């Protein structure tokens, strides 16, 4: 069941760290808990990563060899400055907001329809796992035929929150992206199942 605005606010105001959701920056008076909307907006951050063009015919993220993987290039765009995403272009971005999720809460990042209808895709892997503590990385792509102009700070997407039930006690909240501020590619770590299946 998705949380209402009021329920989200209660999570933000909770004194108990087992339940507390932290969203920062959260601008005072910028959103109403009495709205019928069941999401909160996220805004575009300043750091971007885009794949550097290279001579290789393909990337191999499964190889574990950085030389065969996507070569990332970083960019910082300050508040107030415009930039464009060209047709077919892909880049990683982050939310302006840092989120700290308790272990009994998760979320989905969904694009805003006003931008989606203009061919801007902002996310492919949309789940924000319980215990997430970082800015959220967005996978942005322009599916249209003309460039789209954007600025950091634009309300780029929205988060729908869900309670997670029957949470087992966890000794470690390890995630590859915990504590990160920049859009990272991340290392592809094969699970035991994958290693087994890929070795057949």
């Amino acid at each position: 069941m998705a949380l209402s605005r009021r329920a989200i606010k209660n999570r933000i105001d909770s004194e108990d760290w087992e339940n507390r959701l932290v969203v920062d920056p959260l601008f005072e008076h910028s959103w109403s808990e009495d709205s019928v909307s069941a999401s909160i907006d996220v805004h575009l951050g300043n750091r971007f990563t885009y794949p550097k063009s290279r001579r290789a015919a393909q990337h191999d993220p499964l190889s574990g060899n950085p030389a065969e993987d996507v070569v990332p290039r970083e960019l910082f765009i300050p508040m107030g400055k415009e930039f464009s995403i060209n047709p077919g272009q892909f880049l990683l971005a982050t939310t302006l907001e840092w989120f700290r999720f308790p272990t009994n809460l998760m979320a989905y990042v969904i694009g805003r329809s006003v931008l989606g209808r203009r061919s801007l895709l902002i996310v492919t892997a949309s789940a924000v796992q319980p215990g997430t503590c970082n800015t959220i990385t967005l996978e942005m792509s322009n599916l249209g035929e003309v460039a789209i102009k954007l600025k950091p700070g634009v309300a780029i997407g929205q988060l729908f929150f869900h309670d997670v039930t029957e949470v087992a006690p966890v000794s470690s909240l390890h995630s590859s992206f915990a504590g990160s501020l920049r859009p990272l590619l991340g290392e592809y770590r094969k699970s035991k199942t994958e290693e087994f299946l890929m070795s057949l």
Partner: protein
Amino acid sequence: MPPPWQLSCLQSRLRSLKIEINRVKNKEHPYPEPEIVFKALLAVVESRQALIDEILDLFAPDAPPPELLQPLFDSVVKDLADVAYYFSLVDRVDSARIPFEILRSLSWVSNLLLHEDCRSVVRLDPHYNYTISSFRHIFERLGWEREWSHAIPTGCNPKTTTVLVLGFPSADASSILMHALAAHELGHEFIRPLWTRIEAVREDATSRVRRKHQDALQEYLVERSRITSAKDPSELDEALNQFEPWKDSAKDVEAARRPQSHGDAYEASRKSFELNLAKVINNWFKELFSDLVAARLVGPAFLAAFDRLVVGETQPYKTHPPAGMRRKFVRDYLCREMSLIMQDDVWKELCNPYENYAPPRDFFWKICNDVCSFSLQGLAEIVEAVPSPLKIDNLKKYVSETQMYIENLAPPSAVHSADPVAPADKFWLLIFSSWHFRLNQRRFVTFAERFGWADNLAAAEEAIGNLLLHSLRSLELKYHWSQKVLEGGH
């Protein structure tokens, strides 16, 4: 008079420098602040170019008189060298490794501290060092005020607008906790209007030290004059080196070379010594005062960051006191002025070893050391002019609340403190708080284990740095938002 070929070289240099500055100026920079510096430097180059061209045109086809052209030529060559140097300080301010998130909030707190319109820019310094350059003051010192005025955006006051270029060590650009040392660099700018008072403290301390070491000083100067007056000029530098270990300026060497009697030799040696002493003490006072400014702003967190930059002990230099002396100086200040903070075990563990500083044995450095030690009281009174966020009543509570957030890997800027803390104070307090958390071994290791960094404490520290960086930017954004709300904009 410069030969025609050299004139031609000068004109080529002017042209190529102009092209290069323009090229860098037109690059896509994350922030517009460096543009002021590029425009001002271009204005200098263009005005010198115009001057040379005008002179050559006026006297074409005859050569201009040498008494006119040579000094002009020399002056333009010097200006070119200065332009090239200062251009090199701002031509690489766009590396993605720079923590740009901090720039606007750094400008914001710099404005409040220095009462100027400061636009901060960070460059990656190839040396493992922090530096600061205030470009308005540089342009004023070089007599380029007009060019600076023309580069300032409309509506801004050229007499109070400056671009602060902070150098962060390239090898540690991402070590956000270390950038607490920016507080020391701001101290170098804060010191300007207070220098007369600081000089008075210096004079007083120097007199006291002279009285204390009167006999030893006399012997030292006699020995110095005896050794140096007996030397051939070619051996003079080496002779002086054993007294003050650097080469005297040519003027001093010249003065030391021509004594007519023992009395003259002694007097020349004494003057040379006094000159060197004044130079060194001035430099050391600037560093120590800036250390005190940093101590006022971030407390013992400054020493924690300093220990990362300067690992272990250093010898005295004419530009900087030995590291051990600086640590003890700041510790003594903190124990006196912030005794409650210094009772905390985390800071005690950091600072107690600093008490074991042994002053240098070499007589000259010992004198310098003593002058500085005698000055602590005087400098402490002057540095009261820096408003200290660590003096707030609810410090312990605020730090405790922020560290609860850090422990849960949440930005400490999200703290809703029941007792309000001024936004600019929060900037420095978050640095203080983050370091305190980092140095609390038990708490830090528990934090690292919780998030899967037990085998990689560097990653845990990096996460704290990211939280701090995010928080410093968030503070500034929320401050401006609250101002807009107050103005009725939202």
